[in-house]
């Protein structure tokens, strides 16, 4: 089991001169060229028009005072970036987003792994049933379930206070609001990790576990010495996809708290939304979005590098 994000390109020598092809070229099938060119045009065209060009425009726009309401697009140099980087609001949102992502990813992975191992265990009855249940929140629409949670958190009529006998003002208490959104997000997303870890567990070779068992390794040791290292690529996959999606978490904040109370739940993507489509300061919002893009790219790259290094050391 390997995590491959890259197609297996035929083995051309590294740094080989383009043009002088050293690889054996298989013949082109009739109709292949037309099909291939159609795909290249559609995919490359969409990449250029809907991704590359917008990124370029956002980059240029981040150096402008850009307001679509009055049509302004005036060059201001680095002003958006200097305002941004000296704004406590921006830094607060970044730190909050980091905290939010770290906690949610930890619970998503821990809960996902624990439940997957439990479902996988020979002792468990009704595996398919549990799998269906735990995955259900993941396939339901976030906007709708966020409203359900908002009503569950209602201090007077909500299910949480009523059935647990508590009297907490979940979404309006600055200390509790962000953890409340985290809890909802963990509930919504842990099932994805369950399904992926279950798939990973199915590919752990049984004879390795049996051999360890014969050698006297207990269940706990077998898990940490054999199963867990073999699940590492799956864990990396879950962590990387989670980093990317939680750094841009937005809808749950919009529905549950609108960033409040105060700025207690203002995550970076909500801040960008607010600057762009409530205040129509497109330039400032683009600058903030670019910082987010750089942070996302760096964190993804670091997790990827760490995992590759780890894998090499395991194999070496």
């Amino acid at each position: 089991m390997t995590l491959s994000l890259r197609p297996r390109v035929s083995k051309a020598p590294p740094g080989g001169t383009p043009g002088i092809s050293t690889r054996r070229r298989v013949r082109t099938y009739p109709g292949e060229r037309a099909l291939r060119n159609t795909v290249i045009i559609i995919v490359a065209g969409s990449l250029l028009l809907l991704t590359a060009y917008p990124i370029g425009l956002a980059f240029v726009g981040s150096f402008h005072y850009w307001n679509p309401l009055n049509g302004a697009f005036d060059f201001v140099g680095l002003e958006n970036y200097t305002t941004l980087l000296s704004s406590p609001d921006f830094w607060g949102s970044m730190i909050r987003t980091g905290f939010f992502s770290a906690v949610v990813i930890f619970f998503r992975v821990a809960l996902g792994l624990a439940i997957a191992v439990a479902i996988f265990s020979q002792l468990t009855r009704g595996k398919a049933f549990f799998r269906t249940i735990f995955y259900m929140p993941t396939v339901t629409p976030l906007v709708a379930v966020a409203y359900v949670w908002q009503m569950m958190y209602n201090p007077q009529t909500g299910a949480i206070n009523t059935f647990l006998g508590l009297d907490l003002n979940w979404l309006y208490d600055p200390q509790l609001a962000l953890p409340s959104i985290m809890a909802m997000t963990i509930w919504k997303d842990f099932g994805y990790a369950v399904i992926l870890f279950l798939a990973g567990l199915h590919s752990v070779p049984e004879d390795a576990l049996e051999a360890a068992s014969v050698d006297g390794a207990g269940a706990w040791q077998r898990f940490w010495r054999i199963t867990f290292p073999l699940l590492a690529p799956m864990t990396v996959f879950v962590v990387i996809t989670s980093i990317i999606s939680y750094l841009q978490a937005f809808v749950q904040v919009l529905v549950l708290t609108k960033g409040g109370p105060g700025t207690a739940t203002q995550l970076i993507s909500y801040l960008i939304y607010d600057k762009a489509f409530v205040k129509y300061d497109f330039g400032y919002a683009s600058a903030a979005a670019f910082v987010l893009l750089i942070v996302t790219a760096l964190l993804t790259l670091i997790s990827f590098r760490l995992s590759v290094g780890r894998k090499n050391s395991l194999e070496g």
Partner: protein
Amino acid sequence: MRTRIASGLLTAVLAILGLATVFPFVWMVLSAFKSNKEINAPEQTFLPASWTLENFLAIEEKFDFIRLFGNSVFLAVVITAIAIYTSALAGFVIAKYQFRGRGLLFGFTVGTMMIPWAVTIIPRYTMFVDAGLQDNYLSLIIPAAISGFGIFMMRQNMHAVPDEVLEAARIDGASEIRIFHRIVLPMSVNSIAALAIFQFLWVWDDYLWPYLMISDNANQVLAVGLTTFAGQYGTDYGGLFAATTISVLPVIVVYILFQRRFVAGVASAAVK
């Protein structure tokens, strides 16, 4: 004996966690059948004291939910069909043909998954407004027609289609596009099922982009309709429960119908 106790204990723990997982859904559906008086009463019961349809009837009267529901179904079906077809085709071509720039094309496609929506949504907004596509469903269909995730997932799954099978079809004289339709697509059903649910859900769930593009209330999608409804009738909890139930239940039904294939497809995208 010991294993039987352990088995019972483990199943019980999972059952408790499972109950906690489905609780919000059950509570939502049951509350949708309670009157607002009952929902706001100081004494709460789990089951409705008296079952009523008034919430569903009232939201339909205040707010054209059936219409919005229809809009969302239409868009979700159209976009899902287009995105699955383009993803499967691109996945097939990238996995099975060798051509210069293949790695680059795939690399950039996968790379798009990493880009936060916040970066592209502002320029896309100005682009689509300038192109006069506001209040036109094309503005919702075009950006979703090619999916980086979809292409990634379909390419990962092309190992389910052995080269020998393709070769055999070629020897029989089948054209490449026919091979794609008759062999590749049917052999990719698990991945297609998984991608279908994801894609359907993304369209169903997309909030900000339709909110920016569609201003005509009659053509709005359900996700935006929900927030508008909550904004206007924020204290009508019964109505909101009914509205969220209408929004959540269809997806759960589709999921339960396809879940076996779906789980196989999701897993095979990540394990290879």
